[in-house]
């Protein structure tokens, strides 16, 4: 199945002289989890806001579920779920009150409202906290509540803007289980994140940088792409000190900290010799430069390193 749920054609947004989103085009197919990756300020949220019909595009066009977002924003709003960045809630309202409120906004009243509220509270795991004020919820539960609020009216299309920012790893995993479950039921999901490990859950990925999509594809194709380069792992007590000198080398595409080790990506194998020489010179004894499978982080860091718009990217 490949019916198109979202179609963007040269979608552009300018704020004064600043081009936040620069003529990007993409398609999202029904049932996909479409990951939108990029550093802060790269244009992710601006794109999502245009697709939700709350920010007018300065150029190009976009359709969501067959409705033009600029001409018919209200038709779009009726059919989508949106979880904004920061997932704002009212601290002085309880979990159940939030859900009833959003159900009411989407014209669910009476028995239908109660049924929807009960169902989603159960499914998202909020039933035990139904009478708790949102202001006292731990971070992970706040995100779940924001998600539930966006789901009450069963939208076929869901926009999630950094749904897991600032949440602990366990809650993040649980949250992604929910997202994957929704996609399995046929909901199309566009999700932004800058946790690159989360991107592995997506069917399709797009990297946005400086308002332009600089790479796209499934996680697997992105990692095995010929221009993904060769990544090696360097273990050294001097890790942090080596980061900047490495980044400055002409043949190093990217260098980033990865846990306690360094991941260094070069364009091809022949450059490993030069890298070895450099490392030995800087006191790393007999470095093991066996290429490793690059993580998405390495791929992205590499892409940003070669992008014409790049000014450097550290994850």
């Amino acid at each position, binding site marked *: 199945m490949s019916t198109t749920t979202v179609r963007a054609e040269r979608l552009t947004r300018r704020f004064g002289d600043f081009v936040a989103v620069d003529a990007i085009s993409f398609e999202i197919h029904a049932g996909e989890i479409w990951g939108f990756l990029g550093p802060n300020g790269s244009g992710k949220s601006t794109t999502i*806001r245009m697709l*939700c*019909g*709350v*920010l*007018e595009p300065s150029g190009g066009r976009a359709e969501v579920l067959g409705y033009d977002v600029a001409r018919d*924003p*209200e038709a779009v*709003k*009726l059919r*989508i779920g*949106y979880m*904004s960045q*920061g997932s*704002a*809630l*009212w601290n*002085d*309202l309880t979990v159940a*009150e939030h859900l009833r*409120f*959003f159900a*009411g*906004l*989407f*014209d669910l*009243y009476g028995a239908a409202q109660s049924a929807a509220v009960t169902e989603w509270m159960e499914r998202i795991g909020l039933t035990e906290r139904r009478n708790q004020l949102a202001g006292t919820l731990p971070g992970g539960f706040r995100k779940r509540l924001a998600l539930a*609020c966006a789901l009450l009216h069963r939208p076929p299309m869901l926009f999630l803007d950094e749904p897991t920012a600032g949440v602990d790893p366990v809650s993040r995993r649980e949250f992604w289980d929910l997202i994957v479950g929704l996609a399995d039921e046929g909901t199309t999901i566009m999700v932004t994140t800058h946790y690159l490990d989360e991107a592995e859950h997506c069917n399709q990925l797009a990297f946005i940088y400086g308002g332009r999509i600089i790479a796209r594809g499934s996680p697997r194709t992105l990692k095995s792409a010929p221009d993904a380069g060769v990544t090696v792992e360097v273990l050294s007590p001097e890790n942090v000190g080596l980061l900047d000198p490495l980044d400055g080398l002409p043949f190093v595409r990217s260098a980033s900290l990865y846990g306690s080790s360094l991941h260094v990506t070069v364009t091809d194998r022949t450059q490993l010799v030069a890298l070895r020489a450099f490392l030995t010179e800087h006191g790393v004894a007999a470095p093991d430069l066996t290429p490793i499978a690059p993580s998405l982080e390495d791929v992205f860091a590499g892409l940003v390193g070669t992008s014409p718009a790049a000014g450097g990217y550290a994850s």
Partner: protein
Amino acid sequence: MNWKRVWTIAVKEYRQFIRDRRTVVATMLMPLIQVVLYGYLSSDVRYQPTVVWDLSRTAESRQLLQAFTNSQYFAITFQARNMHEVVERIEDGRALAGVVIPPDYATLIHEKKTPQVMVAVDASDATAARTSLSVAQAIGSSLTNKMRIKELRMQGAHVSAVGIDVRARAWYNPALRQEVFIVPGVLALVMQFTMTFLSMSTIVRERELGTLEQLVVSPIQPWELMLGKMIPLITIGYVNVTLILLLALFWFHVPVAGNVFLLYVTVFVFFFTTLGMGTLVSTIAKTYIQAVQMIQLFLMPSMLLSGFIFPVAAMPPVLQWLSYLVPLTYFLTIVRGIIIKGVGFEYLWWQIFLLTVLGLAVFATAVLRFRKRID
């Protein structure tokens, strides 16, 4: 048209208001405190503390001082022993008036001459000073008249009652109590303040919290959102007005002379207009602090232009035109008309009509400005 969505918003707002205990208490008490303060502070310039230096110390001088006391405008608080004490008391503000009676006061009266009595008033506050001075003059002439008639009678003359009898009548407020005029005005002033202040935070607070984004992505329409947020504020306003009217009646003895039902209907129109003003500011401001500053720009001139202090009829034409943009102007006429004069719809319909038009225009502007966008 979806009134259920309006109600959904209203329920949320009611909940949030009630949960915020401190705001509830402040919102209920503040108008009452203001009415009490204005009610007292506006009372006439009576019982002005007065310092007296009586060099005569005779029955005649005591009679004069008694006349000052009886007028109720002067309260003799200190007997000075020299001019220095008189000046000192007035300079440091412990007295607002000084009376100096010369040593030959009684002697001159008996010699059928005219003694001079000095009355000095602190005229920093010109209005109060004007009243005190004319009262002092009146005391002088009235005592003089009495003495002359007594003198003529003693000489055996027949004194007729020739003169002009001006029968002055004070309508609507026969006792000339200042609070009768002030309290209804304060009701209007305080409610304009409360309503604009409560509504000014409605949109901008959601914007600051980030929840506005969630609201504009929902199918809710701007007018539904704004009306929903107004409904609880109108309820609060009615509670306030009722408390103020009870306070006026039982504390200041200012009853509603006219139709209370008509008053409550016009109060609704006034609320709608002032809430619209606050909401409009709320849609324009980017932050709450900005909204507070913008609302001050509206509230301060509106108090001066409305006729609360200076009558609109006495203003230059340009300011009169500006005053028609202030909802308080109309409501002051309406509320004073109903509470003090007891007049009905037949005298007030034009004011009510204009206030309604202003309210609808303001609300429409707020709705159009909002546009459900976040840029």
